[in-house]
């Protein structure tokens, strides 16, 4: 139990109590923690701060649409070996010189326990998570070319993020601890903004957050502004020195630097349409 409750958030990251216990349960059970949630709720950032809180190194694997499971383990640079064989550079009989570990391989081989982040696992092919089942279960793999077994001395704390672009296979889900990051409410949002802009003027804080949530409430938005966009927007407001009116209505004209919050042309149109009916007299 003394190892439990290790993670309570950090100075730079506000974690809800559910999220904290999800992290701690995943650590205690030695299971991967699967994190889902709206874009901009700090899924990726979480891993950075877990690493910081636990005082461990972070190994990141950014998954792309072309990523193959094998690349996470290791790659075998055959061309370099062929080249060395021809031009006699070094000992070509030693295959291990041409094996390069991927992020998963590095995390397993590390002397110290690490935090492993597999970011946006849903980007890759549908079969990708299945190909990793064994490796994530056993936290070990074999380098086929050398017969070397790479096993984690201490199981890495594994954080997996997903944007739900594709559904993940059941077998994969069964092995994970799952947490859905809810969009922060106004109270939490104030804490988050405070972390990013310490000592922010109370009035600006109140008004910007009120306006932000009003914007999010506009029906029919394709992409609602997220936390990171709010933080950026406040930075722009601070830099420009523009003050927000006390009772701002949400129209494209009344919100300064709307472009920092709303990125799609059609969403700006939606806001415009939405603001119209309140104007007729």
């Amino acid at each position, binding site marked *: 139990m003394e190892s439990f409750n290790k993670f309570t958030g950090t100075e730079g990251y506000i974690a809800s109590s559910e999220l904290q216990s999800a992290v701690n349960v995943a650590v205690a059970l030695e299971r991967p923690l699967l994190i889902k949630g709206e874009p901009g709720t700090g899924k990726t950032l979480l891993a950075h701060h877990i690493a910081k809180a636990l005082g461990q190194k972070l190994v990141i694997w950014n998954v792309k649409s072309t990523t193959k499971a094998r690349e996470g383990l290791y790659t075998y640079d055959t061309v370099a070996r*062929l080249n060395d064989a*021809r031009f006699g550079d070094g000992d070509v009989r030693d295959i291990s010189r041409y094996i390069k570990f991927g992020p998963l391989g590095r995390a397993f081989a590390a002397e110290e326990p690490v935090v492993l982040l597999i970011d946006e696992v849903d980007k890759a092919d*549908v079969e990708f998570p299945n190909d990793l089942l064994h490796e994530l279960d056993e936290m070990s793999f074999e380098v086929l070319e050398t017969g070397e077994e790479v096993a984690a001395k201490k199981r890495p704390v594994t954080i997996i993020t997903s944007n739900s672009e594709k559904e993940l296979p*059941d077998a994969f*889900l*069964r092995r994970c601890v799952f947490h859905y990051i809810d969009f922060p409410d106004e109270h939490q949002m104030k804490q988050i903004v405070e972390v990013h802009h310490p000592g922010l003027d109370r009035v600006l804080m109140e008004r910007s957050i009120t306006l932000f949530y009003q914007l999010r409430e506009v029906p029919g938005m394709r992409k609602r502004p997220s936390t990171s966009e709010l933080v950026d927007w406040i930075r722009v407001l601070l830099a420009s020195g523009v003050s927000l009116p006390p009772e701002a209505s949400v129209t494209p004209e009344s919100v300064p630097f709307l472009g920092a919050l709303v990125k799609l042309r059609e969403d700006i149109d939606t806001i415009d349409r939405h603001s119209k009916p309140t104007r007729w007299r």
Partner: protein
Amino acid sequence: MFLDFFYALKRNEVPVSLTEWMTLMDAMKQGLHGDSLDGFYDLARMVVVKDVAKFDGFDLAFAETFKGMVPAGATAEELLDWLEDSIENLHLTEEEMEHLKRLTPEELMAAFEEILKKQKERHNGGSHWIGTGGTSPYGKGGSHPTGISLGEHGRGTAMMKAMGRGYKGFRSDRTLDVRQMTVALKKLRALRREGEEVLDLDETIDKTCRDAGEISLVFGRERENQVRLILAMDTGGSMEPFRRLVEQLFSAASAINHFKEFKPFYFHNCVYENLYTDVGEYKYEKVDDLIRQSSGEHYRLVMVGDAAMAPFELMIPNGYLERKRTSNTKGIDRLRMLAKRFPKRVWLNPMDEREWRYNTTVEQIAEIFPMFPLTLAGLDAAIKELR
């Protein structure tokens, strides 16, 4: 009690596997639930439920199972009625907090039963009775540190019941999920070496050996899928019950990024002069244009619809008044034109196969398009037909 919870989850269609259940038991042994009902709620949910859509079902099962702890005298509704009132903010002293913290969940529960037996009427702001805004650990909106929230679970229950009813209708024919569709659609491919240049390792080694160790790199091309998929979906009207299923097929097909070309279209009832690219804004492409442009052996046409309509909508000119039409071609003739152009074609019908024969138009269309039910087996068979 825990086994009850397991079956309550199953009943509420939360998919729990034994692996997950054992993990939960293991976690409980390690004391990860922090010896509290709240902690157990969090722990059980994160280990057992892997889909936000199932959170409600979990809430329902949780309420169902642990409702047994509340004596039979009071129903959930009665409790809720008591609790529905506005909540006053309470400021507890340090001492009071300390006292409340000392109670274990078991003691809380036992005390809870006692109080319930005594309680005869609504009570607000006290420190002993169940009500709103009290310091009593029972009830809604109280400030007890290990208190039990009654209101939320109650509401979750009602919400889930409402939702459950809404989905029941097409639960039985929803045999496919997006993932299964994606896996099935992936089988639709005609690979050809046309992609990026990559090193062909086997050939390189072979050639290098033949050249007595003189390195000769051999490059080949990556294999690339040649299939161009045209997916046309019937929307609205009698297709409304299958909306979710069809949307899933659509998202599966558009998400896999697997085809050389992917063109989704919508139609209503039957294909007439135009195929729509956007239902709401009436953007369309003329069927004639599509037929003209889609030449080549790699095109595959997949129609999705119930093929059920009034016979005149299929069989006579002007049978269906489409906007902006300029010709009188019968629906069935349009289908024949498409059939002629696309030798590799299928029609996926979301309707139960046993009901097909009650619609004459289904049979007529099935003569032109090989028709398959929109189930996993049907989709697999359709993909075979398309290959």
